[in-house]
């Protein structure tokens, strides 16, 4: 459609930046900043060029290895483009936050930019091979960022992260192998069509017997690790806690969305019917993820672990929304269809909002660590609102956004999810809503312990945010307020995509 390969440019740009950053030594951060700013500008340009009907636009296609079903096939709809914007924002935030990398800055920022390219590639790919390439490409820099720049127990954390994700990828690969052998195609839109007409299941069954359900489970497992969904989440707290905070921002802000995106782009379109068959156990796991995440967060004292488990909890709402809509609905049942659309809109908004908010929270942790020589326990701080009122104010907004306060971005997504899920799966919705109360307790405890009460000795001379930090954080906090007040900025573009997606899914 579009003559100019803007998606390819977006994917390649960070790689070029990475190559330059590798050789730039202590100027690497500057290179990374320029690259991520340019990427953000490109991503926003892509966002404005989406087709209005919500279908996939900006398509680029070229032959690659036809005999293997491999094709260079790129394109984005509202979902993909929103993820591009989110990835660009989160990477920019991460680079912004990482101004204390003294050890091999060239390599550090090079890896961050490769990771960004991996994100862009996987959010634009429409062919399994191409997608898998970038899915794995993002894993490698993430591993080394944890392994080489992480905290005291970084070795095991990095390995655990890698092994879990690899095992998930293997499950994905095997499932896709079977799909390819059966249908001869690796093209997502084509396979979506085959799944819609039921031919996908027929071909698989005629080749291998009735194993389509198992393929669905394999694909789900791959994404469940990445999101993560209970019981595949155990790699997450260690990885998030041991990674340097700017890297944690990337992990939670952008990489976890690859899993949710995969569910929406691959798992549901191809295996919607099978997922509908096992909807109840999946809903149970989603609810477990929500509830377990928040209770685990309540039990922690390390800020990074609190926010790590809180991320599990927030992404649990996405899972809840996705699995709740996986139910066959009669074409005449307009109310249920509206619920589906609401839930899916909510899921996509929640992906964006959690990305921004969680990244911001870990940024604040990085700031707290820098000022106190590495402290990050909630009991290490107190009364900070006196010496650092601006920090307290901004971090407070981010925390309330995470809590889901109306008027901030976090509220909109969760509200839409519950609005949609309640009519479709009221038991799951009810239990999860109770989880929201615990979330409130956790967040309020964090606020109390850090900003209120007596100021401990080592925080006596706690400096407030300086000009540069205020300048860097202001747009992020501004974005939270903006999306909270004017969610239509995103919904207007996402809703056509939601309608379009639902029209192509068969449960």
């Amino acid at each position, binding site marked *: 459609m579009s003559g100019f390969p803007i998606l390819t440019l977006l994917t390649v740009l960070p790689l070029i930046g990475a190559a330059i950053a590798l050789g730039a030594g202590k100027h690497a951060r500057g290179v990374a900043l320029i690259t991520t700013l340019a990427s953000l500008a490109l991503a926003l340009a892509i966002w404005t060029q989406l087709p209005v009907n919500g279908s996939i636009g900006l398509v680029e296609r070229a032959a690659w290895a036809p005999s*293997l079903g491999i094709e260079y096939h790129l394109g984005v709809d509202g979902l993909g483009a929103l993820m591009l914007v989110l990835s660009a924002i989160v990477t920019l935030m991460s680079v912004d936050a990482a101004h204390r990398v003294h050890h091999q800055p060239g390599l550090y920022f090079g890896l961050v930019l490769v990771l960004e390219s991996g994100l862009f590639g996987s959010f634009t790919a429409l062919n399994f091979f191409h997608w898998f390439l970038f899915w794995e*490409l993002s894993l490698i820099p993430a591993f080394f960022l944890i392994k080489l720049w992480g905290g005291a127990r970084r070795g095991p954390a990095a390995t655990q992260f890698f092994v879990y994700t690899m095992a998930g990828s*293997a499950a994905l690969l095997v499932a896709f192998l079977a799909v390819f*052998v059966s249908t001869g195609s690796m093209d997502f839109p084509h396979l979506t069509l085959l799944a819609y007409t039921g031919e996908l299941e027929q071909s698989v069954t005629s080749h291998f017997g009735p194993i389509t359900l198992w393929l669905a489970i394999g694909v789900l497992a791959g994404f469940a690790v990445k999101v993560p969904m209970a019981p595949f989440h155990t790699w997450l707290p260690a990885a998030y806690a041991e990674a340097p905070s700017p890297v944690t921002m990337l992990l939670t802000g952008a990489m976890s969305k690859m899993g949710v995106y995969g569910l929406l782009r691959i798992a549901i379109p191809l295996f919607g019917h099978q997922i509908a068959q096992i909807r109840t156990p999946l809903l149970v796991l989603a609810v477990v993820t929500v509830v377990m995440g928040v209770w685990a967060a309540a039990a922690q004292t390390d800020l990074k672990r609190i926010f790590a488990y809180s991320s599990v909890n927030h992404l649990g709402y996405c899972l809840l929304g996705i699995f709740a809509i996986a139910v066959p609905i009669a074409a005449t049942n307009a109310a249920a269809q509206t619920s589906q659309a609401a839930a899916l809109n909510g899921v996509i908004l929640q992906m964006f909002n959690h990305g921004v908010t969680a990244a911001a929270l870990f940024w604040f942790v990085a700031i707290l660590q820098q000022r106190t020589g590495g402290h990050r326990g909630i009991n290490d701080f107190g009364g900070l609102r006196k010496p650092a009122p601006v920090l307290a104010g901004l971090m407070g907004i981010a925390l309330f956004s995470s809590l889901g306060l109306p008027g901030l971005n976090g509220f909109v997504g969760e509200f839409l999810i519950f609005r949609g899920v309640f009519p479709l799966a009221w038991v799951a919705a009810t239990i999860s809503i109770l989880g929201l109360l615990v979330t409130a307790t956790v967040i309020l405890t964090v606020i109390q312990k850090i900003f209120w009460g007596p100021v401990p000795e080592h925080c006596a001379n706690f400096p407030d945010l300086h000009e540069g930090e205020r300048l860097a954080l202001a747009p992020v906090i501004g974005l939270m307020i903006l999306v909270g007040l004017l969610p239509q900025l995103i919904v207007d573009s996402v809703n056509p995509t939601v309608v379009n997606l639902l029209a192509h899914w068969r449960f």
Partner: protein
Amino acid sequence: MLAWTIYLSFAGALVQALLPKSRAGLARWLALAVAVAGLTFAVAGFVAGMGQGRVVLADVPWVPSMGIHFLLAADGISRVLVLLTGLAAIAGVLFSWNIELRAHEFFAFYLALIGGVYGVFLSFDLFLLFVFYEIAIVPKYFLIAIWGSTQREYAAMKLAIYSFAGSAMVLIGLLAIYATAGSHSTGLIELSHAELPVSFQMWCFPLVFTGFAILAGMWPFHTWAPTGHVAAPTAASMLLAGVVMKLGAYGCLRVGIALFPRGLDPWGFSFAGLGSWRDVFAVLAVIGIVYGALVALAQTDFKFVIGYSSVSHMGFVLLGLITLNQIGVTGAVLQMFSHGILAGLLFAIVGRIVYERTHTRKLAELETMHLSKRMPFAAAAFVIAGLASMGMPGFSGFVAELQVLVGAWKVNPWWAITAGVGIVVGVAYTWRAMQKAFFSDALPSAHVLEEEHGHHFAAITWPEVTGVVMLAGVSLFVGLYPKILLDAIEPAVKALLAGGGQ
């Protein structure tokens, strides 16, 4: 044009042998020049051959009374493997740059080995192929026995015995087929058209296939491979794993499968669940994949990890061949190329870049050396090579193994699933070796610290950088654009499977 790769390599070997012993520098530059010229011919031949089928390069009667011809020809499969040989030859010279001991002799044997390998890949006469095959074995023995390390005499002898045992089986097969076919030609094409009795094919196929498969490292005849790889000097390990094992696989395809198409038919009865030679060899291949990977996981010597990984990766080649379908065999040929590049790269890093500086290959000792900080180039190179080797998409190995798995799945999903387990173990052993050798946080012992005080590793040299960049770049390029090789391999495989008619 391709034929010149052979002549040039042997001429180079001859000149090397005549060089005075004091001119080590001249010897290596000469060897590099010959290798580069070989690759130039290989590339030119590859480009010229695009879109063409089999092209005859030379056809001269040799022993007319027996119908033996000096018949050189190339189809897509040959062209791809010649290209691999050219690349491996250059890389091998680059990573032998530090050889001082009898350098000209070393390069003489080396170039003779290369010439033999080119010869095998380009021979379309059964006898000629066998002659080149034997020529390639002899220099290998000397390379290991003279310039090798750990248990070199033992390893060299073991390798020679296994190789010759395999050759003997092949030779018996050759004579039998010559007698049975009753044709007055030993040309591969003519023989593939001979209507051999099925009962003959049934006993001769396994003989020839096993004979060649020994050199391809088929379980349980693989044990020469790890010891040989480890004992060999770096360049020889690179060639051994990189191209010599491919000779075996190539023989399995070009002679075994092409000449005895009915040898793979069902027996008509089944024994322990196996109903044909195809089942038998597929099971052996799959065992090789998993067993090689598991053994690699347990090694304490860095080079043995890579040695056993070759057994595992070659299992994919054999499995792909035995699927007998288009995609599986194509994958097998691509895997030959891919593994040739990657095995070369891994042996170069482990045997040359790391070992020549640390003087140990024990993972436990490397653990204390903090190599990622002290040798960042080697660490980065191994990470890339390791990722490629474990089948990371974007590198050549992924496409190749994917094709083999798809091909195997079409025949028997259990083969594919079990081989898939091998891939997972492959990730594990590569990861383990990488962590231990380069990224371990283990504290160095006092003794080591003392010894290393003020001690720096020699800087990375230009031949090392060139070699690593070349091999990694090729693997990446083929991984991202497999079409360039697949376009050559696919028609050739199609013709070969269509009845050996080419």
